[in-house]
């Protein structure tokens, strides 16, 4: 396993499970709604779109918050020959991979809905990776930004599924924006908000 992914997993630990639990909440609600009602196919699809997209958003929100707090920026590593785009892409891939079970469950509700949610997942993952970089400066951390942006996208996707390819097409922009946030970070500045010593490379008293 690549170093970057290994570090992120060690930082997240049990939060990986809790992120799935968070994602299962809207997905489970959508599943029960479909199961306990006789719905027209387009309504089943709408439930799948909303539940699936919200599930991914909730999971990314939880993971991004955990990453921002438990794995703060690593200043010295920025002197190594790798780019901000690379570091952001690694985080986004990690997030996207963890969305896979939620996408499979969405497919149980409606396959087309699952495909649409899959199509917007790269955008959501990159936006979440960017939110991790901005987390120390925000009182709402990374989760607030992910929930707000992702929630709006989920609602829009449920009502207008055709925007899914648009989100996919905008993924390069999301990647560039997240990489720019990575570069802009003032990594050796102390920020009290959302800061745990447990994962801080600059803390002398790490456990």
């Amino acid at each position, binding site marked *: 396993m690549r170093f970057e992914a290994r570090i992120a997993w060690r930082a997240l630990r049990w939060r990986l499970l809790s992120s799935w639990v968070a994602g299962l909440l809207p997905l489970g609600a959508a599943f029960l709604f479909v199961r306990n009602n006789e719905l027209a196919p387009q309504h089943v699809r709408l439930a799948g779109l909303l539940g699936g997209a919200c599930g991914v958003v909730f999971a990314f929100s939880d993971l991004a918050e955990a990453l921002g707090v438990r794995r703060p920026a690593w200043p010295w590593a*920025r002197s190594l020959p790798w780019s901000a785009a690379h570091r952001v892409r690694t985080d986004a891939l990690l997030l996207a991979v963890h969305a896979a079970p939620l996408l499979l469950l969405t497919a149980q509700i409606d396959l087309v809905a699952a495909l649409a949610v899959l199509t917007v997942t790269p955008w959501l993952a990159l936006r979440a990776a960017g939110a991790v970089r901005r987390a120390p400066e925000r009182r709402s951390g990374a989760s607030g930004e992910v929930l707000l942006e992702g929630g709006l996208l989920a609602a829009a996707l449920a009502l207008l599924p055709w925007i899914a390819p648009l989100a996919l097409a905008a993924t390069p922009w999301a990647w560039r924006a997240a990489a720019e946030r990575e570069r802009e970070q003032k990594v050796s*500045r102390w920020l009290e908000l959302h800061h745990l010593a447990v994962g801080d490379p600059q803390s002398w008293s790490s456990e």
Partner: protein
Amino acid sequence: MIRVHRATFAYRPGEPVLAGIDLEIPGGLTLLLGPNGCGKSTLLKLIAGIERPDSGLVEIDGHDLWTDEVAARRGLAYVPEQPDLTPYATVREILGLVCRLRGEPQSAAEEALEFVGLRDLAHRSVRELSMGQRRRSVLAAALIGTPRHVLLDEPLEAMDRGARDAILAWIDRLLAAGATVVAVSHDLAPFAPRAHRAATVRAGHCRLADPLPDDPAARLALLEHMARGEPFP
């Protein structure tokens, strides 16, 4: 060549640390001097690509640190005063990352560990290491590959006599190979004979003394003057 052009930087808005730094650093040893808090380490972080200047640019051999990130950092090695290492990795894993990014075989990590005396501790998590051992770890990372630009922030601090001699010998080898070495150090005696030039940071600006006096006593006196942040001719 390291080139800093009109670089400004502030950790917080309205509190500039560096206010328009212009500096060109060719090969050889350049000392960065000044009193505590003047911005020496911050300038070093800008050159190392740790922090991005709010305005201006930093180039390493013609590559902009922030638009040509990988090429600019390829021959760069940075040894910070505070060894910030991720607590989620072992020393060997961190050096393995450095080997991978610099295109060096994993055996280079083992050689570096041997040089700094950490071979037996390489499997340990960073959390289990003392501060001195962490400093040796980042030093080991700097030894991997053939860095052409080496940035050192208090490299001799808290090092035992054997380690100090080994580090100075390494610096001598770098200089002999034509590398650019920039060092921040309050301990001037070991570096005074080796330095080609010195820069002082004062009130957010940088001033270069190049060349330095040939006479050892005059050279050391000038460097001490600069280290105290006093104006010099």
